[in-house]
């Protein structure tokens, strides 16, 4: 006796050519029962919940973790003219950063990743601000704050220190304030 899994009694005959080329058993469509489908959705729900909880836990751990970064000398500062910039890496070679010497001679350093989608920002001399070429965001060169565009928060600030005429990077402060929030 054949178990009838399908609830359709009037199954159309496969008369078209494409139906003959790709035949299938109608009853096999009902191999997944409603209960199995519900269980699958339940597992999916559990996985999504675990994912959200995991991301939140990871973020909470990262927030508590205070890493002391080693000091690193920034090479090439002596030739940096006012209203110009210099790229360097800090704290690792993969963390690109930008040092800016503003028109008044002050130095400021920031992580180079735009806080919107991580495009590298550059110093626009004409406007004396940091600009992101991807989605037209801009940051204040003196503070790292968002001037306009889609970035949700200021650039990560890199703490610098003058030692014997050289500039050293001594720490990195992730920004956390929301624009308008």
């Amino acid at each position: 006796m054949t178990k009838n899994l399908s609830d359709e009694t009037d199954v159309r005959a496969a008369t078209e050519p494409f139906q003959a080329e790709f035949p299938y058993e109608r009853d096999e469509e009902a191999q997944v029962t409603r209960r199995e489908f519900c269980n699958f959705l339940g597992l999916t729900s559990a996985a999504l919940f675990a994912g959200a909880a995991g991301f939140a836990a990871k973020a909470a751990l990262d927030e508590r973790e205070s890493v002391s970064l080693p000091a690193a000398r920034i090479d090439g500062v002596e030739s940096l003219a006012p209203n110009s910039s210099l790229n360097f890496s800090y704290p690792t070679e993969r963390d690109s950063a930008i040092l800016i010497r503003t028109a008044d001679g002050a130095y400021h350093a920031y992580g180079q990743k735009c806080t919107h989608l991580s495009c590298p920002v550059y110093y626009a001399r004409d406007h004396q601000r940091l600009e992101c070429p991807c989605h037209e965001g801009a940051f204040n060169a003196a503070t790292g704050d968002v001037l306009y565009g889609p970035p949700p928060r200021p650039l990560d600030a890199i703490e610098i220190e003058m030692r014997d005429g050289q500039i050293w990077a001594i720490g990195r402060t992730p920004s956390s304030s929301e624009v308008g929030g």
Partner: protein
Amino acid sequence: MLVMINIAQLWILAATVDAALGRHYPVLVPLVVASGVCFIITLSIIKWWRPTSRRKTSTGYVRDPR
């Protein structure tokens, strides 16, 4: 209903990732709680939901499946 809850949870997960990467910590807990509530609702539906055709009516009559 379960599919709709899954879609809502997917949206919550996207918002959680966005908040975590943006370091917007205050909203993380409400997002995780919301996802947990969705999960509990899903479990409740799976555990207690039965097809209408299998339920007994108030008179004790069991409906025949169509």
